[in-house]
C-alpha cells in the first residue's frame, strides 16, 4: 500500500491486566460507540455476530456459540469488557472466543493476517464503548 510504512509500529499495544480487567484505555482516545457498532455487526472486521446474538435487529443471522450480548454493559464494567475483547484466553484458556488484540501464540496464521491483530487498539476501544451502552 502506498504511503503505509510496513513495520512502522508494533501492531499490538502492551496491556496491564488487573484482576479480571484492563482498566487503562489502550489509546487514551475515548472509544466511539457508533464505530464500535459498525465493527461488531460487520462480517469482515468484528465477526462478533457469527458467535453472539445481540440487540442488532438489522442483522438477521446471529450466532449461538457465545452468550447473548444484550445487557452485557450492565453485567461488566468497561475495564472488564476490554479484557474480554483483547484476550479472553487470560480468563478461560479454553474459550472459543478469539483474542482480538493479540498476535503471539497463534499457529498457521494465513499470510494476509500474520502479525496483525483482529482489531487494532482504537477499534478495541470503539467496541468497548459500544458494549458499555448495551445495558438492557
Amino acid at each position, binding site marked *: 500500500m502506498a504511503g503505509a510504512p510496513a513495520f512502522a509500529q508494533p501492531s499490538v499495544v502492551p496491556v496491564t491486566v488487573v484482576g479480571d480487567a484492563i482498566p487503562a484505555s489502550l489509546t487514551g482516545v475515548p472509544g466511539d460507540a457508533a464505530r464500535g457498532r459498525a465493527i461488531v455487526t460487520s462480517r469482515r472486521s468484528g465477526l462478533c455476530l457469527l*458467535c453472539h446474538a445481540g440487540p442488532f435487529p438489522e442483522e438477521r443471522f446471529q450466532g449461538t456459540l457465545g452468550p447473548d450480548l444484550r445487557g452485557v454493559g450492565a453485567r461488566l464494567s468497561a475495564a472488564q469488557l476490554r479484557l474480554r475483547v483483547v484476550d479472553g484466553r487470560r480468563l478461560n484458556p479454553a474459550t472459543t472466543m478469539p483474542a482480538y488484540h493479540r498476535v503471539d501464540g497463534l499457529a*498457521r496464521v*494465513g499470510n494476509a493476517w500474520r502479525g496483525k491483530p483482529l482489531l487494532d487498539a482504537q477499534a478495541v476501544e470503539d467496541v468497548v464503548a459500544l458494549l458499555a451502552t448495551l445495558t438492557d
Partner: protein
Amino acid sequence: MSRVAAGARVLALVAATVVLAASPACVQSDARRPGSATMSPQTRAMQRDDAQNPAMLWVADGEALWSRAAGPAGRACADCHGDARASMRGVAARHPAYDEASRRPVDLGQRIAACRQRHQQAGPLAPESHERLALEAYVALQSRGMAVAPPADPRLDAHRERGRALFHQRIGQLDLACAQCHDANAGKRLGGSTIPEAHPTGYPIYRLEWQSAGSLQRRLRGCMGGVRAEVPPYDAPDLVDLALHLASRAAGMIVDAPGVRP
C-alpha cells in the same frame, strides 16, 4: 438382490432411522448425525430425490467417462474394472486408503487420478476438475447405503493420528480448532449456518453456495480459510490426514453420497 444384500439394506435403513430419531440433546458416539440432518427440509428433499439432486449430473458424466477410452493406452476404467456397480461397491466407504505406489494414504479423488495416469497414461486429472469430480461422484454412489469402513491398515495409523492432532490444533488468526466447532459446538449456529458434526459421508457434494460440485478437500480448505489459517494446496498431506481422522470419527455411519449442502 441377494438375500444377504437385502438384509444389509434393511439393517442400514434401521440404523439410519435410529440416527435420525435420536434427540439432539444426547449427541454421543452412538447418536452421530450426518450433515444432512441439520439442513432445511427443502435441501434435504433435494438430496434425497435423485431427480432433484444436482450432483447426479456429475454422476451421469462420471458414468459416461467410466467406459470412455482415454490416453495412449486407449483404455477405459471399465476395461480393467468392469461394471462399476459391482467392482466399485464399498470403495468410497474405505477411502482414504494406503497407496502402495506413493507409499502414502490417498483419498478417492487422488486414487482415481492416479489410476488415470498409471494405467491409462492419460493427462492428470486436476483436483476439482469436472472429470475428477464426475468420476468420484459416480464411484461414491456405488457405496451409497454402506457403512463407512476405514481400513485397519497399520500403515495408516501415523497419518490418522496426525489428522487427529490437526483436528484439535487451534489455528489461524481466529485461533480455532476444528474440534471447537465440530465437536464442542455442533448443532449451534455460526451466523446463518448450523454447525454440522463434520462427517464426510456425503462427498463429493453439490453445494448451493458454490453452485457446483466439490470435494471434501474443498470443504476442508474452506473451513481453514474461514478461520484465517494457511490453506494447504489441494492433495496436500494435511488434507488427506484430516480426511482419515474424519473417516474414523464417522466409522459405521451410512454413506449418503452424493450429498447436497446449503
